[in-house]
């Protein structure tokens, strides 16, 4: 299970909306106990692809985020990105480029602008499985 605060969810959503029509992306960090992950910080990074179909995290911003995590005693938990026009599920390319089977991959669909959908996934051997996601008030 992975837990996200409502404030961090709204931060992610606001960034995703501000980046439309392109995909938005970032990193998530927090704490981990067994299979339970608590997201403590959401990082908003630049999509260097500037595309509505692809994303790549900016390596310089990624480096700064990794240092910030370490300085704050957080561990990297995975990443997040938006799907402006498609459902909240990993695409073939998402799965192909998901190299860390322990990471959580959060996908925020804005296909229905009035009802965004956020899901978390694990990807292993090119197979995605949904991870329980709890958004806390």
């Amino acid at each position, binding site marked *: 299970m992975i837990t996200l605060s409502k404030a961090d969810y709204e931060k992610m959503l606001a960034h995703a909306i501000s980046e439309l029509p392109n*995909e938005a*992306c970032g*990193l998530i960090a927090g704490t981990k106990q067994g299979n339970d992950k608590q997201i403590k910080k959401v990082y908003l990074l630049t999509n260097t*692809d500037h*595309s*509505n*179909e*692809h*994303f*790549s*995290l900016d*390596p*310089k911003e*990624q*480096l700064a985020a*990794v240092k910030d995590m*370490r300085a704050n005693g957080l561990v990297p938990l995975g*990443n997040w*990105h938006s*799907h*402006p*026009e*498609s459902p909240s599920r*990993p*695409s073939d*390319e*998402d799965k192909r*480029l*998901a*190299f*860390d089977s322990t990471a959580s991959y959060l996908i925020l669909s804005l296909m229905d602008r009035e009802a965004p959908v956020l899901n978390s996934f694990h990807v292993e051997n090119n197979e995605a499985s949904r991870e329980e996601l709890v958004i806390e008030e």
Partner: protein
Amino acid sequence: MDITVAGVKKTVSDGLTVAQLIVDEKVETPEYVTVTVNDEFVESGTFDVTVLKDGDNVEFLYFMGGGR
């Protein structure tokens, strides 16, 4: 000599290259790893000729991306 890798101090052999460090650290999917030494990005084609020095601070950044 002593270097720091992903925030952890380590003692390594003099003359260690970035390419050998990637092997020693058992970095997964090395073809998708970006390396920084003292916050400077190392060109991927130069890993085998980039020799680390005492006190260097190395980070491995894993490519993250995807598409719809």
